[in-house]
Structures are given as C-alpha cells and as structure tokens.
C-alpha cells in the first residue's frame, strides 16, 4: 500500500510539471465551459423559452465524451515511457510488487483526472443559481459519480494498455481504438440483432452512463461494471509487466 502511494504521488506531481497535462486540462475545461455557455445560450434564445429547465446533464454529458478523448493522452505516458527510458528496470528491481506499480500509476492518473473534474464543478454551481428553484441535487451527485467511475475505468484500461508498449504515440492510438470499440461498437448488436442482442448492452461503456447515471440513477450494475473494467485494466497491466520479465 505504501509503495502504491509513493508511486501515485510521484506520478501525480509529475503531471503538474508536464506541459501536455496542462494542455489537456485546459482544453477539457475550455470545451466543457464552451458547451455549457452555448447550451445555456441556445436555451435562453429559443422561442419556446426554457421549456424544461436545464439540468446537470449539459455539463456531465459532454464531459463523459471528452474523457474518452483525453484519458488516452493522460495514461499513454505512464508505463510506456518508463519502458522507453529504461527506468522500468529500476522499478522492477526495487522491492515493489508489479501490481503496486501498475495500481500506483493508475492512482496518480486518477487523482490528476479528479482534479480536472473538480474544476468543472463550478458549472453546476452556476446553473444552480440560474434556475429556480435550483437543480436536482441528487441527479447531480449521481451524474458526477458516473463521470468519476467512467474516468476510473478509462484510466484503468489506459494504464493496462500503456504497460504493453514502449511508445507513447502507439499507446495513445491503441487506447483510443479500444475506447471507441467499448463506447460505440460493443453495444451495437443490441440495436441491430432482432433477438439475443441484449447482453451486449451491458458491455457498452456509454449506455451505462447515459442511460442511468446521467439521468440521476445510481445503478449497481453500472458501478460494478466500471469498477470491473478498472480492475481488469490494472490486472492486464500487471500481466503485461510479468510477461515483459519473461521475455
């Protein structure tokens, strides 16, 4: 546990000296903010008035999708760069378990992503002030929990993929492809097949978020799904490190 924290701490502080991390954070917040303003603006200017009052979804909806695009850039460095620089040899010969190493890397990235997500909290607060009598607080909590779980799953898979490569760019694209498959393609049979497609819906990363958390429903299956993906990613990463040793 202590090693895990040591590694996470180093990783976390490294993000704050990395221009890439600042760029990602800035773009993330900028796009979420921009969409927030545009959404509010279009609702305010629409001839039908506000209709249904806007809720937290105008913040968390785009955030979930943006996580898909940004988390590969956050995780691509984690283990791939250690392998390239040769520092992996240092960590693998230190008295640290492989799983502590991978999980520590994940935790560092997760804490960094949480920091970015924390900044977006300003938008629901603004929204809360704009609509009467304020936004649905429980829905907001559920949606944010969904975003955080989603981030955990993305980062878990990302760190797993990063441990299989020693090139950051390759890692980025492979991670992105895996995410796209899990986000759009895996669930597709549910809509295409006349029968028997239903189980695929449970494998779909986006439907777990948009169909439940984002609507204010904390679903147990969703929590289990995202946490399993996180664990799977960390497990695969540990396995990849183990395989590296045998080569």
């Amino acid at each position: 546990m202590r090693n895990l924290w040591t590694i996470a701490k180093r990783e976390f502080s490294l993000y704050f000296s990395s221009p890439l991390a600042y760029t990602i954070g800035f773009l993330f917040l900028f796009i979420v903010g921009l969409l927030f303003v545009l959404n509010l603006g279009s609702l305010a200017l629409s001839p039908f008035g506000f209709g249904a009052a806007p809720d937290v979804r105008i913040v968390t909806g785009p955030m979930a999708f943006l996580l898909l695009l940004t988390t590969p850039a956050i995780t691509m460095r984690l283990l791939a760069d250690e392998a390239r620089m040769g520092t992996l040899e240092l960590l693998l010969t230190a008295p640290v378990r492989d799983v502590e190493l991978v999980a520590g890397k994940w935790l560092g990235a997760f804490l960094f992503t949480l920091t970015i997500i924390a900044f977006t909290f300003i938008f629901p607060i603004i929204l809360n002030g704009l609509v009467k009598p304020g936004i649905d607080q429980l829905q907001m909590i559920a949606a944010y929990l969904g975003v955080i779980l989603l981030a955990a799953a993305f980062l878990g898979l990302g760190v797993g993929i990063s441990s299989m490569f020693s090139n950051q760019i390759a890692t980025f694209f492979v991670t992105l492809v895996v995410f796209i498959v899990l986000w759009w393609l895996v669930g597709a049979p549910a809509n295409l097949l006349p029968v028997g497609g239903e189980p695929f819906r449970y494998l779909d990363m986006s439907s777990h978020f948009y169909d439940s958390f984002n609507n204010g429903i904390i679903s147990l299956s969703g929590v289990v799904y995202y946490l399993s993906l996180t664990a799977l990613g960390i497990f695969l990463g540990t396995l990849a490190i183990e395989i590296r040793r045998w080569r």
Partner: protein
Amino acid sequence: MRILTGYMPPSSGAASIAGFDVVSQSLEARRQVGYLPETVPLYTDMTVFGYLKFMADLRHLPEAESAVEEALEKVGLLERASGYIGNLSKGMRQRVGLAQALLHKPQVLILDEPTIGLDPAQISEVRNVIREVGREHTVLLSTHILSEAQQLCDRILIINRGKIIVEDTPANLQNSLSGGQRMEVKVRSQAQSLLPVLEKISGLKNLSLNQGNSLQFSYEAGADPRPEVARAIIHANADLLEMRSINLSLEEIFLQLTGEEPSQAQAE
C-alpha cells in the same frame, strides 16, 4: 545480473542472493541489492534529491532524507542535490545512479558496466567511489575493460557464452595462465646461436626466437633458472642487453581462455 536483481526469472536453475531465492523470495532478495543497470535509469524531469527521495520511499527507508544526503555525500554530489537530472553531465548522472544503488546500504551492490561511455576523469572518479564503497559492501561488477577489473576487483570471473570459464584473483590468474613465469632476453646480435646453449638448461620451456635478437622462454614458478641463463649467455660471448619478466595482461588471458585469436598486441 538481471536475474540476480529480480528483473528476470531464471530460465533454468536457481539463484539466490544474501540467502534469499530470487524467485520465491523475490521482494526480500531485491531489498538486499543495490543495482546500477548499464543504461542509468534516471527521471530527467526530476531533481537529484527528488529522485533519490522517491527511491528511498520505495525502499521504506525510515529516515529517507538523511539517507539521501548520505548517499549523495558518498558520491560527492551534495552540491547538485537541487539540480535537475536532465542538466547533469554523463559522469554526474552515473554518480546519481550509483547513489541510488547505495541509498539503502545494500549487502550486495550490482554494477553493470559502471564506467562505460565516460571520459577518463569521470572514469577515475567513478572507480574511486566504487573502491570506497567496496570496503563496506560486496560489489559485483561487470565490465569489458579488463584493466578495470584488474584494478578494482579481488576476484575475477570470466564468462564466455554463458559459462564460467575461470574464477580466481587477478594475481593468481596471471600466474597460472602464463604457465609459470615468462622471460624475455635481448642480446646485441646472433640470438640464434644461443638457442642450442639455452636448450640445455633444465627448467626452461617454450623457448622461442623473436625478431630483434630477443629470446623468450617460460619456467615453472618453483625453479628459477635465471642466473643460469645469464651465465650461459655470457659464456657464449654474447652481449646481454636486457632480461626482463613478462606479465600476461588480462586481455591476453581472456583471449587464451575464450579461445579467440589474440590480436597483434604483444605481451607487456
């Protein structure tokens, strides 16, 4: 080496270090070892102190900061502690790597070609540090520079194609492999005519005639035919210019042992 440090599992056989098996007690074994790989693993975007502090934390050192300072002092880098590793010269980086390996005062220090790619001044710096450290710790060092092994090591193992072919002290290696002592004798002229004279002296072996009127022979360490040789040469009315013993260099020993063709380099 990578097996001993726990980086790779052995493909066959077993290895243990300080009494701990590297496979079944891997973490315990890794705690006993300080390791400096061939390519020094450094985070160039960290400060020297930050990097060593991180490694000290990974090793659960109770007083990490004082351990870092102590290690830095040993390698003489205390004044660069707050500098970024990326800005250091190669020799300094090597020393940071060495400090990393020394942090936890390991029982065994494993260094993989610690002086490779350094300039002569840096090489002697690093060698001094290693010699210093060798007084307190066991140092296992791999090198392709044989004179370095000769200078630094108490015991030398030569490994060829994965097999240990010899293991001994540098001095013993030289004695046993040169087949006793070798001598060279130089005369002013007509070295050839001395050959039959010297052949009669007992204890001489491998007598041979070289260019420039010099003769070479070897003898067993016990018998010492040198005075006889000198007398015989004087008797034969030849002008004796020089008599000296030749020590085989480790390079030659290495070539002899690995069965490769010796290069042009002659014994010195």
